[in-house]
């Protein structure tokens, strides 16, 4: 791997190596820029470093101290943040979905949220690029939305949990399909197909999972980028001419400074605003890139409620990727809804610790009730949504007074559901209950409390007064400061965000190349 001196400015220093930063590092390096991409976490080698064990693999999660409050405090850590090269894609569930085209103009076309400054047709091209880079395994024809090319790799077979979803959809007369998913269904280079071990959200130990760690990062290194791991960036330096000059980062026990001609923040929707706010100066007292006052605001998670039941037959949902079947019916069907936005739902495959904690926290079970319910583990079936939550300025990331192990102020994450969020959740729970009843599940119950993914907090837009970055992920206030991760989403849609984050990163890299050629950097 090529290494760069701290004292000589690189073209781009990128903070974070997940779906946004990892992808961008690759594409910028391939366009010929000098790139250093930093991650606060270690550079794992999955074949040697990953165990088949939920507890051990919590080492992949961002578990630094954070305060959560509001009416519906978020659960952080495993579910939504990563601290490793590759970011949370190292433990994501690999679900790789495109936005519904209308969502890019949800304010104009659907009457809620905010419009994106991006055109869906252009995004459609970048989705194809990412799907090919990840060799997404998916169906030949996708039942919803405009035409898309067939997926590069064939769909995976269905496990019993996915079959339950499919049977439920057919009984209720809606469409379903195999989930487009970023784990190999055929060999690729040195990696063999997914072996269905079922530990996807604890990290893939066979490299079948096409995370940023195994797809974009090796390409980035081959193109000359440096990946600097265990490097926690604490502050972006900005000078008096409204330009960023580099980043202060903590590595090997001391603070260091990397000079750069451009700084890209890609720390996901908590660490990105935290870094911008922690970088406040006399000239930028409210934090960098924050003349709109919107940095940290409009945090959006996605509703992640579930309905669970018990089947007479053995399901053993621990085998295979957890979400092999999906319906996006309620993302594309607007009739019969009393709420804005949409949701998809997928089959589930919780491992024992996660399942036991779900029974404890969502159903209140402990003692003999918990033990006997856990013995039904192999018969459990579940459906879970990824649902759209609306942007609200009051849902936000601010800085708490307490500091972390680096001496940096920790984030305070405030979250409350709005009425629309609740109506969407109620609709989904009622519908999924019907779907489980239709496949003769018994002992059906609803998990009301979960959320997933992190977006917003540095939204993109066409107006510096109402957004933090423009369509190219370039901050309005500091022309060589960029933000490239889920933070830039103006709305969140009803699908998992990783494919869209990667598509935006590919587009941003192409735009930077074009602008550089025109002398507009």
């Amino acid at each position: 791997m090529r290494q760069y001196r701290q004292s000589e400015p690189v073209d781009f220093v990128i903070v974070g190596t997940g779906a946004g930063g990892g992808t961008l590092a690759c594409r910028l390096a391939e366009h010929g820029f000098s790139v250093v991409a930093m991650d606060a976490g270690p550079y794992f080698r999955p074949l040697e470093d990953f165990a088949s064990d939920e507890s051990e693999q919590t080492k992949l999660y961002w578990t630094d101290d954070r305060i959560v409050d509001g009416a519906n405090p978020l659960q952080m850590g495993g579910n939504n943040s990563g601290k490793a090269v590759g970011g949370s894609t190292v433990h994501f569930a690999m679900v790789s979905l495109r936005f519904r085209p209308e969502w890019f103009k949800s304010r104009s076309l659907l009457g809620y949220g905010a419009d994106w400054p991006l055109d869906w047709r252009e995004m459609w091209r970048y989705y194809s690029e990412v799907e090919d880079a990840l060799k997404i395994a998916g169906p030949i024809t996708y039942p919803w939305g405009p035409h898309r090319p067939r997926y590069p790799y064939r769909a995976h077979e269905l496990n019993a949990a996915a079959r339950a979803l499919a049977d439920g959809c057919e009984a209720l007369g809606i469409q379903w399909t195999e989930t487009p998913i970023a784990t190999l269904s055929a060999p690729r280079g040195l990696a063999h197909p997914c072996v269905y071990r079922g530990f996807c959200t604890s990290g893939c130990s066979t490299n079948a999972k096409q995370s940023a760690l195994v797809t974009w990062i090796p390409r980035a290194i081959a193109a000359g980028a440096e990946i600097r791991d265990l490097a926690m960036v604490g502050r972006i330096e900005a000078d008096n001419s409204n330009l960023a000059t580099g980043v202060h980062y903590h590595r090997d026990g001391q603070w260091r400074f990397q000079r750069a001609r451009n700084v890209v923040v890609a720390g996901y929707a908590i660490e990105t605003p935290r870094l911008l706010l922690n970088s406040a100066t006399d000239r930028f007292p409210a934090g960098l890139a924050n003349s709109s006052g919107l940095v940290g605001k409009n945090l959006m998670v996605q509703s992640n409620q579930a309905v669970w039941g018990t089947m007479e037959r053995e399901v053993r949902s621990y085998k295979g990727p957890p979400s092999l079947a999906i319906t996006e019916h309620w993302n594309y069907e607007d009739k019969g809804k009393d709420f804005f936005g949409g949701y998809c739902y997928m089959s589930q495959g919780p491992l024992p610790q996660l399942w036991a904690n779900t029974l404890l926290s969502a159903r209140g079970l402990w003692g003999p009730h918990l033990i006997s319910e856990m013995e039904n583990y192999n018969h459990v079936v579940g459906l879970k949504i990824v649902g759209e939550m609306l942007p609200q300025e009051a849902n936000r990331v601010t800085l708490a007074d307490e500091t972390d192990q680096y001496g940096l102020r920790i984030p305070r994450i405030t979250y409350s559901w709005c009425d629309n969020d609740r109506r969407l959740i109620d609709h989904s729970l009622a519908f999924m209950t019907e779907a489980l009843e239709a496949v003769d599940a018994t002992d059906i119950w609803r998990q009301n409390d979960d959320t997933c993914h992190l977006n917003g907090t540095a939204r993109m837009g066409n107006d510096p007064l109402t957004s933090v970055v423009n369509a190219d992920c370039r901050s309005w206030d500091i022309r060589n400061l960029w933000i490239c991760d889920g933070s830039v989403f103006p709305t969140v849609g009803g699908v998992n965000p990783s494919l869209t984050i990667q598509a935006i990163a590919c587009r941003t890299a192409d735009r930077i190349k074009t602008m550089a050629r025109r002398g507009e950097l």
Partner: protein
Amino acid sequence: MPDSRPGTRFPGYDVLSKRQGPSWNEKTREVIAKRLATASEPRFFTADEFLTVVAAASRIVPQPPTRRPVPIAALVDRKLHLMQSDGYRLPGTPRDGEAWRLGLKALDLETRVAFGVPFHILKEADQDFLLARMQSGELRDPAWTDMASDVFFRMRLARDIVLAYYSHPTAWSEIGWGGPASPRGYVRIDYDERDPWEAAEVKGGNVVAARRKNNRVR
């Protein structure tokens, strides 16, 4: 219908019988060996605190007297000793280790006020009574300071105990889970399909058949 007594549904199944087989990679063997060797003495908790944790663990996750118990309290203790945190907390709730100490102190005080003795020597029914009141947030002694007792129950005490128990191979065998699965993974994934290296459940009351299959798991 399956036998409803705990521990009888997967007779003879022991996930550790696969330990040297193709379902366990080296890293997994190393991690589980370390967990199985967890010594029973506390490193984080004081001796008094540890007695309370042991007692609470035996109510949150009761274990049958017919086998070696999972050392739940020691596993919780080790996690706190290594400062492995969930990484998020509500306002008024301290970081994981401090939250445990605060909660145990408050529980001890509530117990002495109500029953005049420490938690660990209470009758099981009285321990359950107090834990249920904690779960519903009805323990409100000033000793809890700004941390609600139901938050402590859900996010710390019961959560850490349940996660510790289900991190242990004994618990995996009890629920018939396949356990570690790298690199071999699984082949048969549809309804009622079982790979020969998975647990067999007693079907139609035929314990012998299930036991025979489970004894062959490698």
